[in-house]
């Protein structure tokens, strides 16, 4: 682990949900450090808190208590609008169900984060602290479509740019989703059961692609309950009852 420049650092991260009259403690104080360029698997059974952890790390939700530093910046207490910008510029999501927009072509799906970036005001500036790191490309003056095509090329689907998701196989869809996660040159890629909806052979291809991204210097956090998948990461963190196991 690269302790000098942690991408993720959480301190006593706590999340409480209100379910009816009762409070449910989903996270009970998690301290987690993930270094730049790490490929980490986060394992745990259903109800262990790993999904909640992923939502917090992905800035989709805010913690009840504790701190979450992303690239040294406290993002746990940001407004909804600021969190949207962080998701847009520093985080790439890969979902189990791919979550591509059915009416858009592969290329437009991949370009989607860049379109929201264009009106974000600050553009790519100010948050590209890790751009000098390994794996980042020169993204200066390229148009969103050019960058989307480059990302599609990276996952080997340049020839499917004009296809809609329904015209693609499951593995191809997940590759498009990976290209979408990559296109904004994020600090962190969060993959939630990325092979969960794929057969083992296709799943293997996707895992090899993730390993390649890791080799290129990307930081990946893989959330899974599948031990075989988790073993392909550099190391594994285990969660149980809202706590990180030592």
């Amino acid at each position, binding site marked *: 682990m690269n302790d000098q420049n942690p991408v993720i650092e959480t301190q006593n991260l706590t999340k409480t949900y209100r379910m009816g009259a009762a409070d449910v403690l989903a996270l009970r104080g998690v301290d987690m450090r993930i270094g730049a360029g790490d490929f980490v698997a986060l394992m745990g059974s259903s109800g262990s808190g790993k999904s909640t952890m992923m*939502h917090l790390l*992905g800035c*989709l*939700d805010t913690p009840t208590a504790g701190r979450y530093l992303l690239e040294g910046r406290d993002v746990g207490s940001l407004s*909804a*609008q600021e969190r*949207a*910008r962080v*998701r*847009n*510029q520093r985080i790439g*999501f890969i*979902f189990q169900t791919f*979550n*591509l*927009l059915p*009416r*858009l072509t592969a290329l437009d799906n991949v370009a*989607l*984060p860049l*379109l*929201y*970036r*264009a*009106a*974000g005001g600050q553009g790519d500036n100010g948050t590209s602290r890790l751009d000098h790191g390994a794996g980042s490309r020169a993204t200066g003056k390229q148009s969103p479509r050019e960058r989307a095509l480059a990302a599609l090329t990276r996952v080997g689907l340049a020839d499917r740019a004009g296809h809609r998701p329904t015209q693609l196989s499951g593995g191809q869809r997940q590759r498009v989703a990976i290209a*979408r996660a990559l296109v*904004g040159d994020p600090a962190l890629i969060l993959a939630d059961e990325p092979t969960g909806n794929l057969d083992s052979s296709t799943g293997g291809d996707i895992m090899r692609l993730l390993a390649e991204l890791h080799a290129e210097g990307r930081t990946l956090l893989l959330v899974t309950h599948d031990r075989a998948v988790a073993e392909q990461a550099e190391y594994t963190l285990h969660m149980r009852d809202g706590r990180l196991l030592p």
Partner: protein
Amino acid sequence: MTFVNVLRTALSGIAANKLRTGLTMLGIIIGVASVIATLALGNGARAAVENSFRFLGSDQIQVSGQFTVEDGEPKPAGKLLSYEDGLTLPDAAPLIDRVEMTVRGSGKVRHGQTTLDMPFTGVDAGALTSMIADGKVQPVGWPAGDLLTSEAFLARGRFFTHSEVAAGAQVCVLGYKTADDLFLGDDPIGQTVWINRKPCEVIGVIAELETVDEQERTRSKPNETFYLPVSTAVQNLFENDPWVEITARVTDEARMDEAKTQIAAHLRLRHGIEQGNDGKWLDDFRLTTKKDILGVQQDAARTFSVLLAALAVVSLVVGGFGIMNVMLVSVTERTREIGVRMAVGARQQDVVLQFLLEAALLSLAGGLVGILVGILAIPLAASLNAGLALLDPASIPVALLVALATGIIFGLYPALRAARLDPIEALRYE
């Protein structure tokens, strides 16, 4: 997200559900078409008044006698409007700076051996200008649309001056055919004609005129007449006091009603008019402004307009709720899409904008179709309103704005609902 991209996104959202979209737009279409037709009715009435009362300026009050019909003959309801009534008016009514009077009659005009019997008009110095403003006649062969001048109305000589009218000078201006028939090609200017045995110097000849309306050309004889100063005509050509038409010019256009009160007071005094049992004055005259005429015409169009306007409002509200409904369905159907967009960085305002624009485009498309339907429906509206309906060009932007506003107002709630979705819940939505 740039506007073009938002637009593209919104358009593809609409295109995905063509039938639903079309049905939703129906309310907006009917509403906007009604807006166009309503405004066309008002505009038609206004245009009709403009056309038939062109001679009456907006700063003028027409004073006319009241007539009752007995045995098919019009009879004056009280005293006739006299030349004296008009002459004393500017002094009695401070808001009136001058009056123009016209008196009509028929008389004999003689030159040498030739005597002609024909109608004449006693007028003021401004009669040529009034004739141009009225726009019913024009010099023969005058190119359509060309601006008329007083000079174009004169074949020879000149028209009366104000001082000639004030002095009751013994001068006259002949119609084209009258001059031709009396002088057989000789120059009549400076010659003396005898009108009802009184000598009169010819100072001008009117150009050969024809009515602008081609169908009236065979009936009307605009060239067989002559003109005298109204003062001269009243003094010399009538045995009894003739009745005159009076047009009073008001100094301040904003005080027309006040001016009418002053005129009424003056005429009531001169005519000895009393109040009836109900306190109303039993006037024998009528005061008319352009606004009054317009009001009468618009009252006629109003009943129908109110119905149409009600239809417009109801249709737009129904259309608006249709849009709201379609947008709510759309938001629900696309919950997951919204979640994905939020996950990749769409802010709440991006989502609001996307759905608001979609609703606006929907209503705007309905608005465009509605404008077309409305324009096509104008002849129908006209047939229900005495033929008075005319497309008001300003109603098109108005209709588009109304459609747009409907879309935005009714699209706001669905858009806000989309933007308030929790991204985690939205991503989980099946």
